[in-house]
């Protein structure tokens, strides 16, 4: 990888590059964005913490679920004993009020839940979105109508309200993190389906796709071999921005007390009772809040960076004026890869530049 980066030409000389080196071009463009690199490092660290959670807590000598009643002052309503919310060599970040559970362990295991649920939900959203979007664009008029209406309806149903409602009817014996993942994944795929449909409509009339069709290829084969590569850029872009949204959604549901439930730790759930304890144990509030903020921020900045790297046209749009130099000049040389949100005839103008 480092060789590929070293070998790539200096940034700023945007010339059309054959599609084969798309990945290399992507890295070159991502590399030039300092904020995105920092964000990528933060995200990598978070993923590492989540993966190594059992290791880290073993190092501390604690686990996220054991109660330590001796560490909280039951006479004062369960305030952690000692300064800094009971932080000590044994409990690095102190303990939870009332239960005395180790806060560090809950925080790092919370990262597992947060990232795991968000990533798995994103995979579901992308899978459904791509299937519906491609099917809608390639199917006949009735299939398109049906799938497009279904997409409209899914987009209309607010994620928060719908997931709350669905969580009400599922028996409480169902494992909660899986349930939250399914609910978020099954509700919020509408926008990605719209983007994929628009992009597929633009792609399917290009010469190489027509050539495949005229050679008698089946729809599935055309979709897999000819269309999916062209869809990769917009799908990756949108998926990168879905992850932070899903993190917020999981945190919000758990905060409301209907998402991930104790004893499984989750950052949103930790915040539910935090406001009562902020004076005695401020880190009980600040740690999960900070963790959520940093995670969502890093993922959003990284997602923006990915979009800039994959869709230079949008990036140069945003950059216009800051440099006050040859406005929009570099947009003409790069092929537009990002499908517009609006479906319909305007997205077909792609053919003119290709």
């Amino acid at each position, binding site marked *: 990888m480092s060789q590929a980066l070293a070998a790539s030409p200096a940034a700023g000389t945007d010339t059309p590059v054959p599609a084969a080196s798309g990945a290399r071009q992507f890295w070159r463009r991502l590399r030039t964005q300092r904020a995105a690199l920092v964000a990528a490092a933060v995200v990598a660290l978070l993923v590492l913490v989540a993966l190594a959670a059992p290791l880290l807590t073993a190092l501390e000598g604690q686990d996220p679920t054991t109660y330590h009643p001796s560490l909280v002052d039951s006479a004062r309503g369960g305030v952690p004993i000692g300064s800094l919310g009971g932080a000590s060599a044994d409990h690095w970040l102190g303990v939870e009020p009332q239960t005395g559970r180790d806060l560090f362990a809950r925080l790092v295991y919370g990262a597992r839940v947060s990232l795991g649920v968000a990533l798995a939900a994103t995979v579901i959203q992308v899978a459904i979105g791509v299937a519906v979007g491609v099917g809608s664009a390639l199917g006949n008029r009735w299939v398109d109508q049906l799938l497009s*209406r279904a997409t*409209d*309806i899914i987009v*209309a*149903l*607010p*994620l*928060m*309200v*719908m997931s*709350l*409602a*669905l*969580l*009400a*009817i599922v*028996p409480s014996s169902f494992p909660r993190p899986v349930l939250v993942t399914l609910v978020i994944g099954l509700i919020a795929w509408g926008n990605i389906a719209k983007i994929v449909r628009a992009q597929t409509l633009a792609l399917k009339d290009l010469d190489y796709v027509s050539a495949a069709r005229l050679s008698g290829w089946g729809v599935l084969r055309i979709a897999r071999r000819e269309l999916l590569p062209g869809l990769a850029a917009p799908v990756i872009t949108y998926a990168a921005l879905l992850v*932070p949204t899903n993190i*917020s959604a999981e*945190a*919000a549901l758990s*905060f*409301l*007390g*209907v998402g991930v439930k104790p004893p499984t730790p989750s950052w*949103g759930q930790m*915040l539910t009772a*935090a*406001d009562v304890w*902020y*004076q005695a144990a401020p880190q009980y*509030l600040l740690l999960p*809040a900070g963790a*959520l*903020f940093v995670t*969502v*921020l890093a993922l*959003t*900045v990284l997602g923006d960076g990915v979009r800039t790297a994959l869709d230079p046209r949008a990036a140069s*749009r*945003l950059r*216009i*004026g*800051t*440099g*006050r130099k040859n*406005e*929009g000049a570099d947009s003409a040389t790069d092929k537009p890869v990002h499908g517009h949100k609006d479906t*319909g*005839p*305007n997205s077909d103008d792609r053919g003119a530049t290709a």
Partner: protein
Amino acid sequence: MSGFGGFVLRRAAGTVVTLLAISVLIYVVFYATPGNVAQITCGPRCSPEQVHQVALQLRLDDPLYLRYWHFLEGLLAGQDYSTGTSVEHCSAPCLGVSYQSGQQVLDIILTKLPVSLSLVLGAMVLWLVLGVGTGVLSAWRRGRLSERLLTVVTLAGWATPVFVLGLVLMIVVCGELQLLPFPEYVKFGDDPEQWAWNLLLPWLSLALIEAAAFARLTRAAMLETLAEDHIRTFRAYGVGERAIVARHALRGALAPVIALNANNVGSAVGGAVLTETLFGLPGIGQELVHAVKVVDLPVVVGMVLVVGFFVVIANAVADVLYAVADRRVVLA
């Protein structure tokens, strides 16, 4: 004008179809589940006789399409509910009866609605002013320090979950600085001044988060317009930069802002649920969370229906407004 009228009619017809489809989806998801529907609807503390009563009311012995028809009939024409001892009429639009509280779902929603509307509409004014204002400012000051600063603040707002910001605001403003009392809902009719003071923090929490999206969008749309040829012509004619930004570039941002505001209705409702729960405001969101926790199915379904309808209608209205702001849409 006929083209515009036709567009509005087509859009209205499409909306009706979508609303019907949503009602089917919601009915199937919540009332055609494999479990004991009558038991879930009635609630965990119902006696077998009550559950039997509910099963009769929902016509669970009928085929699914007849049951849905019965549900739709109630929605459009009203329905009688037997409570065991007496018969109560639930007039259209009948969203059903909560077997746990004995109240009609529509009544529950109507008593909670003013709180939620106060929250969302007040916050909407704030987020439009703050968001569009920030976007205009950062497009105007592009490339300077103040724009970088605004971009960072906007990104921070974009990344903060609404309940985290609300929690921090509440602790700092009400707890530490004691500038405001902890919010407690006061009816507008009782005391408008107290109403506003108590809603100030909830408004801010919801608005600051939502404003970030509008700031990003406004900035991007204005930069796009500023790069267009007609703006260069204005510049060549010697029109001042301030006038160009305020008068001409802002117009380019108007249509996308309207579209985003409609698309955002759903997320704003979600934000309102969180804000109400956090600040203890007795609105629809808080009631929904309560109904979910105690598994009061008729209330949950009624609220999902109302919110879904609300979002669809808001989107349709926005489409029409969008067409007014940008007539090219009608032709497409």
